[in-house]
């Protein structure tokens, strides 16, 4: 049993490590091909990771990536591809900002109200795709992509001055939220402030692990993901599982924008970061849908984002980081598949070897031993 675990850890770690190594090497080749020093950019970026203000930026950004990636990962575990995390979190942040600007309760009620608003908005938006899939058989991929576009339009509508919009200069905002809904950060002096909701990201990660690995619902979810027919045969209602998984995924997605909304901007404006939902897909893949893996992956992504701008000041292009992110995603797929097959072959070989050993034994003794050898 012990040995089996080591084997699994080896296989789990080999994929990402190989992918990263390949991505580094390929990026270096790109640099050499464009006549640049292939090592210095990485040195600069590693150096950046040592600065406290950059670390704060990395952690803040990673918290949002992490939540978005968890939302995607829940879908993946169930064999659902929620590509609509992007629309879900933006719409949820929008409604939370609007509620925060108009409701003014004591902080103890205001903050839960805002979190709930975001969760419900996200769940509602992904729920549409879930209902369509369960009742009409519409692919959730198509439905959520469409819903992304609709979310953009809904947000634009809510920005209208006679709806919820407040114009500040040339910017559309939703007005400043009441201070009771602001979540104080961890003040690190000159280095900046870590968003208070980074803690929420950690809690969500723990919750994700507990639900998936220690509850019946989690088991049903993983079972449905592995084989929906087998799960249905053992009494799991596939329709209900799809809907629940979509709602859960959307609900978590709804929280992805809140760290910056409640911790920094306090309004939903044209500057609100977009695209986190799409990045979450790559991060969930790299993290292999595991809460720890996703944590590393989102930190890696955030590091590439936050350390690369410095490259501009050293005569390199910061797009190197984007190239690298792309290469990582590509090599992740290849290396995971390769490692999986390698693991499978290794397993087969070992079983074969044991069988062969069984045969030898069986030749001396009787056939029952050979069966036991399996």
């Amino acid at each position, binding site marked *: 049993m012990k040995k089996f675990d080591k084997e699994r850890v080896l296989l789990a770690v080999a994929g990402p490590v190989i992918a990263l190594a390949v991505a580094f090497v390929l990026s270096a080749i790109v640099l050499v091909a464009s006549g640049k020093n292939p090592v210095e950019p990485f040195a600069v970026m590693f150096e950046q990771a040592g600065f406290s203000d950059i670390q704060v930026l990395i952690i803040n950004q990673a918290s949002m990536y992490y939540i978005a990636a968890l939302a995607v990962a829940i879908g993946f575990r169930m064999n659902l591809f929620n590509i609509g995390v992007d629309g879900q979190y933006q719409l949820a942040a929008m409604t939370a900002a609007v509620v925060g600007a108009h409701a003014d309760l004591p902080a103890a009620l205001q903050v839960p109200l805002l979190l709930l608003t975001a969760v419900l908005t996200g769940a509602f938006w992904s729920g549409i795709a879930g209902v369509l899939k369960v009742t009409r058989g519409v692919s959730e991929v198509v439905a959520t992509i469409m819903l992304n576009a609709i979310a953009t339009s809904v947000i634009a509508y809510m920005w209208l001055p006679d709806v919820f919009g407040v114009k500040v200069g*040339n910017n559309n905002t939703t007005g400043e939220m009441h201070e009771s809904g602001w979540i104080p950060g961890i003040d690190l002096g000159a280095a900046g402030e870590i968003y208070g909701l980074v803690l929420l990201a950690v809690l969500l990660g723990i919750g994700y692990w507990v639900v998936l690995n220690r509850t019946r619902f989690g088991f049903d979810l993983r079972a449905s993901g592995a084989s929906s027919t087998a799960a249905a045969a053992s009494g799991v209602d596939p329709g209900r599982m799809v809907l629940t998984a979509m709602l859960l995924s959307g609900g978590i997605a709804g929280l992805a924008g809140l760290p910056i909304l409640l911790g920094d901007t306090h309004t939903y404006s*044209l*500057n609100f*970061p977009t695209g986190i939902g799409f990045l979450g*897909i790559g991060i*969930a893949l790299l993290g292999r849908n595991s809460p720890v893996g996703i944590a590393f992956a989102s930190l890696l992504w955030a590091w590439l984002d936050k350390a690369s701008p*410095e490259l501009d000041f050293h005569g390199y292009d910061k*797009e190197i980081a984007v190239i690298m992110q792309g290469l990582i995603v590509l090599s992740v797929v290849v290396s995971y598949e390769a490692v999986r097959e390698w693991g499978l072959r290794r397993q087969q070989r070992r079983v074969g070897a044991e069988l062969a050993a069984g045969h030898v034994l069986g030749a001396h003794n009787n056939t029952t031993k050979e069966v036991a050898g399996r």
Partner: protein
Amino acid sequence: MRRISRITVAGAATASLALALSACGGTSTSAGSSDSKGDKGLAIAYDVGGKGDQSFNDAAYAGLEQAKKEFGYQTADVEPTEGETGADKEQRLVSLAKQGYNPVIGVGYAYASAVKGAAEKFPDTTFGIVDDETINAKNVADLVFNEEQASYLAGVAAAKSSKSKVVGFVGGVDIPLIHKFQAGFAQGVKDTDPKVKVLSQYLTQTAEEGGFASPDKGKTAAEGQIEKKADVVYAAAGLSGQGVIEAAAAKKVWAIGVDSDQYEQEALAKYKDSILTSAMKDVAKAVYSLAKSVEDGKPETGIVRGDLKTGEVSLSNSNPKFADDAELQEAIKTAKEKIISGEIKVKSS
């Protein structure tokens, strides 16, 4: 198992597509390395789109080039990353100020909060922000423009030139900044000839969807308006405007350009006979003037407004067919004088 890996591949394909899309905006920049000594001057930080947008980012770069040549100091221009937050923008400005660049200009209203934060940290550096007037600090110059005034004149030109009595407006992204262009244009048309109908269309709701960077979208929109009998189309759509101009040239109707004098642009040389005029917004001059004021030791501060009076917004006169049309020129001249004297108040939304 197989289904899982198929979904993995689909996910990876999408993710890499998203990355590929987001990588499009960037071009190589050549900022000076931080360890080189010497006199450091103007630095600009671009908004999404960056250098090469044929629009106001490029105009800002032109101002930077001029300052660099004239004052002979080291300059820097830095591009944003996709989906970044205000904190990243502030980090960028702080980093520039820390290296000794002065002034530091954020191009685009998205830099508002970043400029505010950075200006507090570096009180001795002059900061500039283009297209925003909400920052009120001693060391910040708000470089804003009355785009609606030039657009009003474009509306006058359009109404005078239209035979079908239908004109079109194509906006890049549905945001307040572009609403100013539309409002001025529509008012100019109506004041000149109330019978002329204005068709308006915005290409996208958000800049991320490419409203400022998709000539194909601009072309489709313009073709639709031309089909509805529009014979003058005005594009305030950044790079997408090239598509509008292309469509107008193909259908032999007039196009009105924006931001810079598009009649003179090399990329549009093929279509220049269809470009009636351009509603110009001289970001280059505003950027250069701020750099000059810092160089002269009297840095600009507060709201620095470019309008018809200062000449930082204007209508270009490089198409001879437009410049030689006496009646048209007369109408534009009268409108311009009335705007400057305050007789005509141009709406901005």
